[in-house]
Protein backbone atom coordinates (compact mmCIF):
# COMPACT_ATOMS: atom_id res chain seq x y z
CA UNK A 1 0.00 0.00 0.00
CA UNK A 2 2.74 2.44 0.99
CA UNK A 3 4.81 1.59 -2.08
CA UNK A 4 1.88 2.05 -4.47
CA UNK A 5 1.15 5.41 -2.86
CA UNK A 6 4.74 6.60 -3.25
CA UNK A 7 5.22 5.23 -6.73
CA UNK A 8 2.07 6.61 -8.30
CA UNK A 9 2.52 9.61 -10.56
CA UNK A 10 2.83 13.17 -9.28
CA UNK A 11 -0.46 14.03 -10.99
CA UNK A 12 -2.25 11.06 -9.40
CA UNK A 13 -1.02 12.15 -5.96
CA UNK A 14 -1.91 15.77 -6.55
CA UNK A 15 -5.41 14.89 -7.75
CA UNK A 16 -5.97 12.52 -4.82
CA UNK A 17 -4.96 15.32 -2.46
CA UNK A 18 -7.20 17.80 -4.26
CA UNK A 19 -10.24 15.51 -3.88
CA UNK A 20 -9.41 14.84 -0.20
CA UNK A 21 -8.83 11.15 -0.92
CA UNK A 22 -5.32 11.64 0.45
CA UNK A 23 -3.64 14.20 2.65
CA UNK A 24 -0.29 15.70 1.90
CA UNK A 25 0.86 14.71 5.40
CA UNK A 26 0.09 11.03 4.73
CA UNK A 27 2.01 11.11 1.46
CA UNK A 28 4.97 12.96 2.95
CA UNK A 29 5.13 10.54 5.92
CA UNK A 30 5.12 7.56 3.54
CA UNK A 31 7.86 9.15 1.46
CA UNK A 32 10.03 10.03 4.45
CA UNK A 33 9.61 6.50 5.80
CA UNK A 34 10.81 5.10 2.47
CA UNK A 35 13.77 7.49 2.45
CA UNK A 36 14.84 6.24 5.88
CA UNK A 37 14.59 2.62 4.71
CA UNK A 38 15.97 2.80 1.17
CA UNK A 39 18.37 5.68 1.09
CA UNK A 40 21.07 4.04 3.21
CA UNK A 41 21.51 1.78 0.14
CA UNK A 42 21.02 4.43 -2.55
CA UNK A 43 22.63 7.55 -1.05
CA UNK A 44 20.41 9.76 -3.18
CA UNK A 45 19.91 12.52 -0.59
CA UNK A 46 22.52 14.83 0.86
CA UNK A 47 20.05 16.23 3.36
CA UNK A 48 16.45 15.47 4.29
CA UNK A 49 14.22 18.07 5.91
CA UNK A 50 11.85 15.78 7.79
CA UNK A 51 10.50 18.33 10.27
CA UNK A 52 10.19 21.10 7.70
CA UNK A 53 8.46 18.86 5.16
CA UNK A 54 5.89 17.57 7.66
CA UNK A 55 5.16 21.07 8.93
CA UNK A 56 4.71 22.31 5.36
CA UNK A 57 2.42 19.37 4.49
CA UNK A 58 0.23 20.02 7.55
CA UNK A 59 0.07 23.71 6.66
CA UNK A 60 -1.01 22.92 3.09
CA UNK A 61 -3.63 20.44 4.33
CA UNK A 62 -5.08 23.04 6.69
CA UNK A 63 -5.12 25.77 4.06
CA UNK A 64 -6.86 23.46 1.64
CA UNK A 65 -9.60 22.75 4.18
CA UNK A 66 -10.18 26.32 5.23
CA UNK A 67 -9.51 28.55 2.26
CA UNK A 68 -10.84 28.96 -1.24
CA UNK A 69 -7.43 29.46 -2.82
CA UNK A 70 -6.86 28.55 -6.44
CA UNK A 71 -5.72 25.04 -7.30
CA UNK A 72 -1.97 24.66 -7.12
CA UNK A 73 -0.10 22.70 -9.79
CA UNK A 74 2.05 20.79 -7.29
CA UNK A 75 -0.24 20.92 -4.27
CA UNK A 76 1.12 18.81 -1.41
CA UNK A 77 3.46 16.55 -3.40
CA UNK A 78 7.01 15.69 -2.28
CA UNK A 79 9.76 17.18 -4.45
CA UNK A 80 13.54 16.91 -4.14
CA UNK A 81 16.03 19.37 -5.58
CA UNK A 82 19.63 18.91 -6.63
CA UNK A 83 21.96 20.37 -4.04
CA UNK A 84 22.97 23.28 -6.27
CA UNK A 85 19.77 25.29 -5.95
CA UNK A 86 20.37 27.63 -3.05
CA UNK A 87 17.84 27.55 -0.22
CA UNK A 88 17.57 29.65 2.90
CA UNK A 89 16.29 26.88 5.15
CA UNK A 90 18.68 24.09 4.10
CA UNK A 91 22.43 24.00 3.41
CA UNK A 92 23.68 24.09 -0.18
CA UNK A 93 26.90 22.15 -0.71
CA UNK A 94 27.04 21.27 -4.43
CA UNK A 95 28.33 17.94 -3.04
CA UNK A 96 31.72 19.61 -2.57
CA UNK A 97 33.93 20.13 0.47
CA UNK A 98 34.31 23.67 -0.84
CA UNK A 99 30.76 24.50 0.31
CA UNK A 100 30.41 22.19 3.29
CA UNK A 101 27.88 23.72 5.70
CA UNK A 102 27.18 26.71 3.44
CA UNK A 103 23.76 28.26 3.91
CA UNK A 104 22.61 30.80 1.36
CA UNK A 105 21.14 34.13 2.43
CA UNK A 106 18.74 34.04 -0.53
CA UNK A 107 16.42 31.56 -2.25
CA UNK A 108 16.71 30.23 -5.81
CA UNK A 109 13.96 31.00 -8.32
CA UNK A 110 13.34 27.27 -8.87
CA UNK A 111 12.68 26.55 -5.19
CA UNK A 112 10.58 29.71 -4.88
CA UNK A 113 8.39 28.57 -7.76
CA UNK A 114 8.14 25.06 -6.38
CA UNK A 115 6.89 26.43 -3.08
CA UNK A 116 4.53 28.88 -4.83
CA UNK A 117 3.05 25.91 -6.71
CA UNK A 118 2.36 24.08 -3.43
CA UNK A 119 5.27 21.60 -3.50
CA UNK A 120 6.76 20.15 -0.32
CA UNK A 121 10.54 20.18 -0.65
CA UNK A 122 11.68 17.18 1.35
CA UNK A 123 15.42 17.41 0.79
CA UNK A 124 18.37 18.00 -1.47
CA UNK A 125 19.85 15.42 -3.78
CA UNK A 126 23.32 14.03 -4.19
CA UNK A 127 25.28 14.97 -7.32
CA UNK A 128 28.76 15.17 -8.75
CA UNK A 129 30.54 18.12 -7.15
CA UNK A 130 29.58 21.36 -8.91
CA UNK A 131 27.67 19.22 -11.46
CA UNK A 132 30.92 18.00 -13.01
CA UNK A 133 30.68 14.27 -13.60
CA UNK A 134 28.69 11.52 -15.26
CA UNK A 135 28.17 8.92 -12.53
CA UNK A 136 27.60 10.76 -9.21
CA UNK A 137 30.90 9.36 -8.00
CA UNK A 138 32.62 12.73 -7.52
CA UNK A 139 30.57 13.66 -4.47
CA UNK A 140 31.89 14.50 -1.03
CA UNK A 141 28.85 12.58 0.26
CA UNK A 142 29.88 9.38 -1.55
CA UNK A 143 28.42 7.81 -4.70
CA UNK A 144 24.75 7.35 -5.48
CA UNK A 145 23.74 3.79 -6.38
CA UNK A 146 21.37 2.81 -9.18
CA UNK A 147 18.11 1.46 -7.72
CA UNK A 148 17.85 -1.10 -10.54
CA UNK A 149 21.26 -2.55 -9.73
CA UNK A 150 23.29 -1.15 -6.87
CA UNK A 151 26.61 -2.05 -8.54
CA UNK A 152 25.82 0.14 -11.54
CA UNK A 153 26.01 3.86 -12.13
CA UNK A 154 23.00 6.04 -11.39
CA UNK A 155 24.37 8.44 -13.98
CA UNK A 156 25.28 12.02 -13.32
CA UNK A 157 25.58 14.64 -12.41
CA UNK A 158 21.93 14.60 -11.23
CA UNK A 159 22.27 10.95 -10.20
CA UNK A 160 20.78 11.49 -6.75
CA UNK A 161 17.68 13.06 -8.27
CA UNK A 162 17.22 10.25 -10.81
CA UNK A 163 17.69 7.47 -8.24
CA UNK A 164 15.30 9.14 -5.78
CA UNK A 165 12.55 9.60 -8.39
CA UNK A 166 12.94 6.02 -9.65
CA UNK A 167 12.74 4.59 -6.12
CA UNK A 168 9.74 6.70 -5.16
CA UNK A 169 11.69 8.80 -2.66
CA UNK A 170 10.02 11.90 -4.12
CA UNK A 171 7.34 12.48 -6.74
CA UNK A 172 9.65 14.53 -8.95
CA UNK A 173 12.97 16.32 -8.79
CA UNK A 174 14.68 19.35 -10.24
CA UNK A 175 18.22 18.86 -11.50
CA UNK A 176 20.57 20.75 -13.78
CA UNK A 177 21.72 19.83 -17.28
CA UNK A 178 24.93 21.32 -18.71
CA UNK A 179 25.86 18.46 -21.05
CA UNK A 180 23.19 15.86 -20.28
CA UNK A 181 23.16 15.81 -16.48
CA UNK A 182 19.39 15.43 -16.27
CA UNK A 183 18.78 13.20 -19.31
CA UNK A 184 21.66 10.75 -18.85
CA UNK A 185 20.88 9.80 -15.21
CA UNK A 186 17.18 9.70 -16.11
CA UNK A 187 18.02 7.14 -18.83
CA UNK A 188 20.13 5.03 -16.47
CA UNK A 189 17.49 5.02 -13.71
CA UNK A 190 14.40 4.53 -15.92
CA UNK A 191 12.69 7.90 -15.43
CA UNK A 192 11.78 10.82 -17.65
CA UNK A 193 14.36 13.63 -17.83
CA UNK A 194 13.50 16.95 -19.48
CA UNK A 195 15.95 19.73 -20.29
CA UNK A 196 13.80 22.64 -21.45
CA UNK A 197 14.89 25.27 -23.95
CA UNK A 198 17.75 27.44 -22.67
CA UNK A 199 16.11 30.38 -20.90
CA UNK A 200 12.80 28.63 -20.12
CA UNK A 201 13.62 28.18 -16.40
CA UNK A 202 15.20 30.92 -14.35
CA UNK A 203 18.72 30.11 -13.19
CA UNK A 204 18.67 32.69 -10.40
CA UNK A 205 20.17 30.92 -7.40
CA UNK A 206 21.40 27.91 -9.39
CA UNK A 207 25.13 27.54 -8.74
CA UNK A 208 26.89 28.17 -12.05
CA UNK A 209 29.11 25.67 -13.85
CA UNK A 210 29.13 26.76 -17.53
CA UNK A 211 26.78 29.68 -18.03
CA UNK A 212 26.14 29.37 -21.77
CA UNK A 213 25.15 25.71 -21.32
CA UNK A 214 23.60 25.39 -17.84
CA UNK A 215 19.85 24.81 -17.68
CA UNK A 216 17.64 23.49 -14.89
CA UNK A 217 15.61 20.42 -15.81
CA UNK A 218 13.10 18.04 -14.28
CA UNK A 219 13.05 14.31 -13.54
CA UNK A 220 9.72 12.51 -13.20
CA UNK A 221 8.17 9.05 -13.43
CA UNK A 222 5.79 9.99 -16.26
CA UNK A 223 5.79 12.35 -19.24
CA UNK A 224 2.66 14.07 -17.93
CA UNK A 225 4.47 14.80 -14.67
CA UNK A 226 7.30 16.39 -16.65
CA UNK A 227 4.73 18.58 -18.41
CA UNK A 228 3.20 19.81 -15.16
CA UNK A 229 6.65 20.52 -13.72
CA UNK A 230 7.48 22.53 -16.84
CA UNK A 231 4.25 24.48 -16.45
CA UNK A 232 4.99 25.17 -12.78
CA UNK A 233 8.60 26.30 -13.19
CA UNK A 234 8.68 28.11 -16.53
CA UNK A 235 8.16 31.83 -17.06
CA UNK A 236 10.22 34.99 -17.18
CA UNK A 237 12.39 36.07 -14.27
CA UNK A 238 14.02 39.53 -14.50
CA UNK A 239 16.74 38.44 -12.08
CA UNK A 240 18.22 36.07 -14.69
CA UNK A 241 19.69 37.87 -17.71
CA UNK A 242 19.16 34.79 -19.89
CA UNK A 243 15.54 34.18 -18.87
CA UNK A 244 13.24 34.09 -21.92
CA UNK A 245 10.58 36.80 -22.10
CA UNK A 246 7.74 34.30 -22.22
CA UNK A 247 4.83 33.48 -19.92
CA UNK A 248 4.67 30.08 -18.17
CA UNK A 249 3.98 27.15 -20.49
CA UNK A 250 0.75 25.18 -20.70
CA UNK A 251 2.20 21.91 -21.96
CA UNK A 252 -0.18 19.69 -20.01
CA UNK A 253 -3.15 21.06 -21.98
CA UNK A 254 -1.85 19.73 -25.32
CA UNK A 255 -0.13 16.61 -24.06
CA UNK A 256 -2.63 14.10 -25.40
CA UNK A 257 -3.18 15.78 -28.77
CA UNK A 258 -2.53 13.58 -31.79
CA UNK A 259 0.94 13.50 -33.33
CA UNK A 260 -0.44 12.87 -36.80
CA UNK A 261 1.33 15.28 -39.11
CA UNK A 262 4.50 15.35 -37.02
CA UNK A 263 7.67 14.50 -38.92
CA UNK A 264 10.10 12.51 -36.82
CA UNK A 265 13.75 12.80 -37.81
CA UNK A 266 15.63 9.62 -37.00
CA UNK A 267 19.30 10.41 -36.59
CA UNK A 268 21.61 8.48 -38.88
CA UNK A 269 24.38 7.01 -36.73
CA UNK A 270 27.71 6.29 -38.39
CA UNK A 271 30.09 3.57 -37.29
CA UNK A 272 31.80 5.78 -34.72
CA UNK A 273 28.51 6.46 -32.98
CA UNK A 274 26.83 3.08 -33.15
CA UNK A 275 25.16 2.44 -29.79
CA UNK A 276 24.90 -0.90 -28.02
CA UNK A 277 22.43 -3.47 -29.33
CA UNK A 278 19.97 -2.73 -26.52
CA UNK A 279 19.94 1.01 -27.34
CA UNK A 280 19.68 0.31 -31.09
CA UNK A 281 16.69 -1.96 -30.37
CA UNK A 282 15.13 0.78 -28.23
CA UNK A 283 15.48 3.27 -31.08
CA UNK A 284 13.82 0.87 -33.54
CA UNK A 285 11.02 0.24 -31.06
CA UNK A 286 10.45 3.97 -30.45
CA UNK A 287 10.44 4.70 -34.16
CA UNK A 288 7.84 1.98 -34.72
CA UNK A 289 5.66 3.23 -31.87
CA UNK A 290 5.70 6.81 -33.07
CA UNK A 291 5.04 5.74 -36.64
CA UNK A 292 2.02 3.77 -35.42
CA UNK A 293 0.84 6.85 -33.50
CA UNK A 294 0.78 8.87 -36.72
CA UNK A 295 4.23 10.41 -37.10
CA UNK A 296 6.03 10.34 -40.43
CA UNK A 297 9.61 9.12 -40.04
CA UNK A 298 12.63 10.11 -42.11
CA UNK A 299 16.35 9.62 -41.59
CA UNK A 300 18.43 12.75 -41.00
CA UNK A 301 22.15 13.44 -40.58
CA UNK A 302 24.12 15.67 -38.22
CA UNK A 303 27.73 15.83 -39.49
CA UNK A 304 28.87 18.14 -36.67
CA UNK A 305 28.01 15.50 -34.06
CA UNK A 306 31.46 13.92 -34.28
CA UNK A 307 33.06 17.08 -32.87
CA UNK A 308 30.40 17.93 -30.29
CA UNK A 309 32.30 16.49 -27.34
CA UNK A 310 35.41 18.52 -28.19
CA UNK A 311 33.35 21.70 -28.43
CA UNK A 312 31.65 20.93 -25.14
CA UNK A 313 34.89 20.13 -23.29
CA UNK A 314 36.55 23.35 -24.36
CA UNK A 315 33.59 25.70 -23.83
CA UNK A 316 32.32 24.20 -20.58
CA UNK A 317 35.75 24.02 -18.98
CA UNK A 318 36.65 27.57 -20.00
CA UNK A 319 33.42 28.86 -18.47
CA UNK A 320 33.91 26.72 -15.36
CA UNK A 321 37.39 28.15 -14.77
CA UNK A 322 35.84 31.60 -14.76
CA UNK A 323 32.72 30.78 -12.72
CA UNK A 324 34.55 28.88 -9.99
CA UNK A 325 37.12 31.63 -9.45
CA UNK A 326 34.71 33.02 -6.82
CA UNK A 327 35.57 30.20 -4.39
CA UNK A 328 38.54 31.83 -2.75
CA UNK A 329 38.25 30.81 0.90
CA UNK A 330 37.73 34.41 1.95
CA UNK A 331 34.11 35.36 1.51
CA UNK A 332 32.48 31.95 2.05
CA UNK A 333 33.12 28.23 1.89
CA UNK A 334 36.19 26.11 2.63
CA UNK A 335 39.02 28.11 4.19
CA UNK A 336 42.45 27.14 5.47
CA UNK A 337 42.90 29.56 8.35
CA UNK A 338 46.41 28.30 9.13
CA UNK A 339 47.91 30.02 6.07
CA UNK A 340 49.94 33.11 6.92
CA UNK A 341 49.62 34.86 3.58
CA UNK A 342 46.71 35.38 1.25
CA UNK A 343 48.12 33.49 -1.72
CA UNK A 344 48.74 30.38 0.39
CA UNK A 345 45.25 30.65 1.84
CA UNK A 346 43.77 30.69 -1.65
CA UNK A 347 45.87 27.75 -2.77
CA UNK A 348 45.19 25.56 0.23
CA UNK A 349 41.49 26.40 0.40
CA UNK A 350 40.96 25.64 -3.27
CA UNK A 351 43.33 22.67 -3.16
CA UNK A 352 41.44 21.12 -0.23
CA UNK A 353 37.95 22.24 -1.24
CA UNK A 354 37.84 21.17 -4.89
CA UNK A 355 37.82 17.50 -5.80
CA UNK A 356 39.73 15.77 -8.58
CA UNK A 357 37.21 16.25 -11.41
CA UNK A 358 36.68 19.92 -10.65
CA UNK A 359 40.44 20.53 -10.62
CA UNK A 360 40.79 18.68 -13.91
CA UNK A 361 38.23 20.90 -15.61
CA UNK A 362 39.43 24.17 -14.10
CA UNK A 363 43.02 23.51 -15.13
CA UNK A 364 42.07 22.62 -18.69
CA UNK A 365 39.74 25.61 -18.88
CA UNK A 366 42.54 27.93 -17.76
CA UNK A 367 44.97 26.38 -20.23
CA UNK A 368 42.78 26.75 -23.30
CA UNK A 369 41.91 30.36 -22.52
CA UNK A 370 45.46 31.42 -21.70
CA UNK A 371 47.47 33.76 -23.87
CA UNK A 372 48.63 32.06 -27.04
CA UNK A 373 46.14 29.20 -26.83
CA UNK A 374 42.74 30.90 -26.73
CA UNK A 375 42.49 31.29 -30.50
CA UNK A 376 43.62 27.75 -31.13
CA UNK A 377 41.26 26.13 -28.65
CA UNK A 378 38.51 28.28 -27.13
CA UNK A 379 37.72 30.51 -30.10
CA UNK A 380 37.91 27.51 -32.39
CA UNK A 381 35.35 25.74 -30.20
CA UNK A 382 33.03 28.75 -30.35
CA UNK A 383 33.22 28.74 -34.15
CA UNK A 384 32.53 25.01 -34.23
CA UNK A 385 29.57 25.55 -31.91
CA UNK A 386 28.06 27.99 -34.40
CA UNK A 387 28.51 25.30 -37.07
CA UNK A 388 26.69 22.73 -34.93
CA UNK A 389 23.90 25.16 -34.17
CA UNK A 390 23.40 25.85 -37.88
CA UNK A 391 23.62 22.13 -38.59
CA UNK A 392 20.74 21.51 -36.17
CA UNK A 393 18.73 24.43 -37.58
CA UNK A 394 19.10 22.88 -41.04
CA UNK A 395 18.07 19.49 -39.68
CA UNK A 396 14.92 20.92 -38.09
CA UNK A 397 13.85 22.38 -41.43
CA UNK A 398 13.10 18.81 -42.49
CA UNK A 399 11.58 17.41 -39.30
CA UNK A 400 9.70 18.54 -36.18
CA UNK A 401 11.29 16.30 -33.57
CA UNK A 402 14.55 14.35 -33.62
CA UNK A 403 14.91 10.79 -32.29
CA UNK A 404 18.37 9.71 -31.11
CA UNK A 405 19.97 7.78 -28.26
CA UNK A 406 20.29 9.37 -24.84
CA UNK A 407 23.35 7.26 -24.01
CA UNK A 408 25.44 4.78 -25.99
CA UNK A 409 24.66 1.98 -23.50
CA UNK A 410 22.52 1.23 -20.47
CA UNK A 411 24.01 2.09 -17.06
CA UNK A 412 27.62 0.90 -16.83
CA UNK A 413 29.17 -0.55 -13.70
CA UNK A 414 30.31 2.14 -11.33
CA UNK A 415 33.77 0.79 -10.49
CA UNK A 416 36.61 2.15 -12.57
CA UNK A 417 34.61 4.92 -14.22
CA UNK A 418 36.44 7.73 -12.49
CA UNK A 419 39.80 6.61 -13.91
CA UNK A 420 38.84 7.34 -17.52
CA UNK A 421 37.75 10.97 -17.80
CA UNK A 422 37.92 11.19 -21.60
CA UNK A 423 35.69 8.13 -21.99
CA UNK A 424 33.18 9.66 -19.57
CA UNK A 425 33.10 12.84 -21.67
CA UNK A 426 32.73 10.85 -24.91
CA UNK A 427 29.73 8.97 -23.50
CA UNK A 428 27.81 12.28 -23.42
CA UNK A 429 27.99 12.70 -27.21
CA UNK A 430 24.24 12.40 -27.76
CA UNK A 431 23.12 14.77 -25.01
CA UNK A 432 25.67 17.54 -25.56
CA UNK A 433 24.26 18.99 -28.84
CA UNK A 434 21.05 20.17 -27.13
CA UNK A 435 23.12 22.18 -24.64
CA UNK A 436 25.42 23.64 -27.28
CA UNK A 437 22.41 24.79 -29.30
CA UNK A 438 20.10 25.61 -26.37
CA UNK A 439 17.42 23.18 -27.54
CA UNK A 440 14.80 21.33 -25.49
CA UNK A 441 15.45 17.60 -25.17
CA UNK A 442 13.95 14.77 -23.22
CA UNK A 443 14.93 11.22 -22.30
CA UNK A 444 12.16 8.67 -21.96
CA UNK A 445 12.61 5.04 -20.90
CA UNK A 446 11.27 2.50 -23.37
CA UNK A 447 12.25 -0.87 -21.93
CA UNK A 448 14.64 -3.02 -19.94
CA UNK A 449 17.87 -4.63 -21.15
CA UNK A 450 18.27 -8.42 -20.92
CA UNK A 451 20.10 -7.72 -17.66
CA UNK A 452 17.10 -5.84 -16.29
CA UNK A 453 18.42 -2.31 -16.54
CA UNK A 454 16.45 0.56 -18.12
CA UNK A 455 17.07 1.57 -21.73
CA UNK A 456 15.94 4.97 -22.98
CA UNK A 457 15.76 7.09 -26.10
CA UNK A 458 16.06 10.84 -26.50
CA UNK A 459 13.81 13.31 -28.32
CA UNK A 460 14.95 16.80 -29.28
CA UNK A 461 13.03 19.76 -30.75
CA UNK A 462 13.64 23.31 -32.01
CA UNK A 463 13.87 26.13 -29.47
CA UNK A 464 10.71 26.78 -27.44
CA UNK A 465 8.94 23.73 -28.89
CA UNK A 466 9.00 22.11 -25.45
CA UNK A 467 5.29 21.34 -25.58
CA UNK A 468 5.63 19.55 -28.95
CA UNK A 469 8.51 17.54 -27.53
CA UNK A 470 6.38 16.46 -24.57
CA UNK A 471 3.43 15.62 -26.85
CA UNK A 472 5.59 13.26 -28.91
CA UNK A 473 7.09 11.76 -25.75
CA UNK A 474 3.60 11.23 -24.36
CA UNK A 475 2.60 9.39 -27.54
CA UNK A 476 5.63 7.13 -27.16
CA UNK A 477 4.82 6.51 -23.49
CA UNK A 478 1.20 5.69 -24.39
CA UNK A 479 2.33 3.13 -26.94
CA UNK A 480 4.86 1.68 -24.51
CA UNK A 481 2.47 1.37 -21.55
CA UNK A 482 3.32 1.92 -17.87
CA UNK A 483 7.02 1.68 -17.08
CA UNK A 484 7.90 -0.53 -14.08
CA UNK A 485 9.60 0.64 -10.90
CA UNK A 486 12.83 -0.89 -9.61
CA UNK A 487 12.09 -4.04 -7.59
CA UNK A 488 13.76 -2.63 -4.46
CA UNK A 489 11.34 0.33 -4.52
CA UNK A 490 8.34 -2.02 -4.44
CA UNK A 491 9.59 -3.86 -1.37
CA UNK A 492 9.21 -0.99 1.11
Amino acid at each position, binding site marked *: MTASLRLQSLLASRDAIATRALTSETLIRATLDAVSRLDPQLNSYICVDEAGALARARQLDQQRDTSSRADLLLDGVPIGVKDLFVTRDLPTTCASAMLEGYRSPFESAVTERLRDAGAVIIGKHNMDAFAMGSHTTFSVAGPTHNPWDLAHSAGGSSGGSAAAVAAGLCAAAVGSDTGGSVRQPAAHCGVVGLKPTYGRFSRYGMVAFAS*SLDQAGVLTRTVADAAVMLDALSGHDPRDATSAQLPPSNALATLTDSITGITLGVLHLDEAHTPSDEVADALDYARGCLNDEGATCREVALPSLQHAVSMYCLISMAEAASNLARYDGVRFGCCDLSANDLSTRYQRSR*GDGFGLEV*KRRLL*LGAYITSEG*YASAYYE*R*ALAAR*AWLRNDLARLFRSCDVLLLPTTPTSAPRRDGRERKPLQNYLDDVFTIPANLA*GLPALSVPVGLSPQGRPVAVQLMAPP*FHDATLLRVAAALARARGPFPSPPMAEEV
Partner: protein
Amino acid sequence: MPPSPTFTLDDLQALAVHLHIELTPEMLIRLHHDLSEVLAHVAALQHLELPQAPVTHHAITPLRDDDAPPTTLAPDALAQMAPQMAGAWVAVPRVVDTHTEDDLT
Protein backbone atom coordinates in the same frame (compact mmCIF):
# COMPACT_ATOMS: atom_id res chain seq x y z
CA MET B 1 49.04 30.45 -32.97
CA PRO B 2 49.12 26.64 -33.09
CA PRO B 3 48.75 24.81 -29.80
CA SER B 4 51.76 23.65 -27.92
CA PRO B 5 52.90 20.30 -29.32
CA THR B 6 53.52 19.17 -25.79
CA PHE B 7 51.67 19.99 -22.64
CA THR B 8 54.34 19.70 -19.99
CA LEU B 9 54.29 19.17 -16.26
CA ASP B 10 55.75 22.66 -15.93
CA ASP B 11 52.82 24.06 -17.91
CA LEU B 12 50.44 22.35 -15.53
CA GLN B 13 52.27 23.52 -12.44
CA ALA B 14 52.18 27.09 -13.74
CA LEU B 15 48.44 26.79 -14.35
CA ALA B 16 47.88 25.49 -10.84
CA VAL B 17 49.71 28.49 -9.43
CA HIS B 18 47.73 30.81 -11.68
CA LEU B 19 44.45 29.22 -10.52
CA HIS B 20 45.53 29.19 -6.85
CA ILE B 21 45.08 25.44 -6.55
CA GLU B 22 47.58 23.50 -4.46
CA LEU B 23 48.40 20.12 -6.02
CA THR B 24 50.37 17.22 -4.61
CA PRO B 25 53.12 15.77 -6.84
CA GLU B 26 51.04 12.62 -7.34
CA MET B 27 47.99 14.60 -8.40
CA LEU B 28 50.10 16.72 -10.74
CA ILE B 29 51.24 13.60 -12.60
CA ARG B 30 47.76 12.12 -12.74
CA LEU B 31 46.17 15.34 -13.98
CA HIS B 32 48.92 15.80 -16.54
CA HIS B 33 48.12 12.40 -18.01
CA ASP B 34 44.36 13.05 -18.06
CA LEU B 35 44.59 16.51 -19.56
CA SER B 36 47.10 15.47 -22.21
CA GLU B 37 44.63 12.82 -23.33
CA VAL B 38 41.80 15.35 -23.58
CA LEU B 39 43.97 17.87 -25.41
CA ALA B 40 44.98 15.23 -27.93
CA HIS B 41 41.33 14.47 -28.57
CA VAL B 42 40.17 18.07 -28.99
CA ALA B 43 43.09 18.84 -31.33
CA ALA B 44 40.93 17.49 -34.17
CA LEU B 45 39.03 20.78 -34.10
CA GLN B 46 42.15 22.51 -35.42
CA HIS B 47 41.86 20.75 -38.75
CA LEU B 48 38.19 21.44 -39.43
CA GLU B 49 37.11 23.50 -42.41
CA LEU B 50 34.44 25.49 -40.59
CA PRO B 51 31.75 27.38 -42.50
CA GLN B 52 31.62 31.09 -41.81
CA ALA B 53 29.02 31.74 -39.13
CA PRO B 54 28.66 34.42 -36.50
CA VAL B 55 30.06 33.28 -33.17
CA THR B 56 27.66 33.96 -30.35
CA HIS B 57 27.71 32.59 -26.84
CA HIS B 58 23.98 32.48 -26.37
CA ALA B 59 22.22 30.28 -28.80
CA ILE B 60 18.72 31.63 -28.94
CA THR B 61 17.83 33.87 -26.06
CA PRO B 62 18.88 37.50 -26.35
CA LEU B 63 20.22 38.82 -23.08
CA ARG B 64 17.87 41.24 -21.41
CA ASP B 65 18.87 44.84 -20.93
CA ASP B 66 20.91 45.32 -17.80
CA ASP B 67 18.08 47.01 -15.96
CA ALA B 68 16.99 44.39 -13.43
CA PRO B 69 16.17 45.60 -9.95
CA PRO B 70 19.19 45.29 -7.65
CA THR B 71 19.24 42.22 -5.41
CA THR B 72 22.06 43.30 -3.13
CA LEU B 73 22.16 41.28 0.06
CA ALA B 74 22.31 42.83 3.50
CA PRO B 75 25.87 43.17 4.83
CA ASP B 76 24.96 41.11 7.90
CA ALA B 77 23.85 38.19 5.71
CA LEU B 78 27.06 38.35 3.72
CA ALA B 79 29.21 38.59 6.84
CA GLN B 80 27.61 35.44 8.25
CA MET B 81 29.03 33.45 5.35
CA ALA B 82 32.62 34.61 5.82
CA PRO B 83 34.99 32.07 7.35
CA GLN B 84 36.75 34.73 9.43
CA MET B 85 35.69 38.17 10.59
CA ALA B 86 37.48 41.03 12.34
CA GLY B 87 34.81 43.32 13.73
CA ALA B 88 32.59 44.30 10.84
CA TRP B 89 35.17 43.27 8.23
CA VAL B 90 36.03 40.04 6.45
CA ALA B 91 39.49 39.11 7.73
CA VAL B 92 42.32 38.09 5.41
CA PRO B 93 46.05 37.71 5.98
CA ARG B 94 48.06 40.89 5.47
CA VAL B 95 48.56 41.58 1.77
CA VAL B 96 50.48 44.87 1.74
CA ASP B 97 53.42 45.36 4.05
CA THR B 98 53.43 48.44 6.26
CA HIS B 99 56.17 50.80 5.16
CA THR B 100 57.52 53.91 6.77
CA GLU B 101 58.10 56.98 4.66
CA ASP B 102 61.84 56.28 4.91
CA ASP B 103 61.32 52.88 3.26
CA LEU B 104 59.66 54.49 0.29
CA THR B 105 62.34 57.03 -0.40
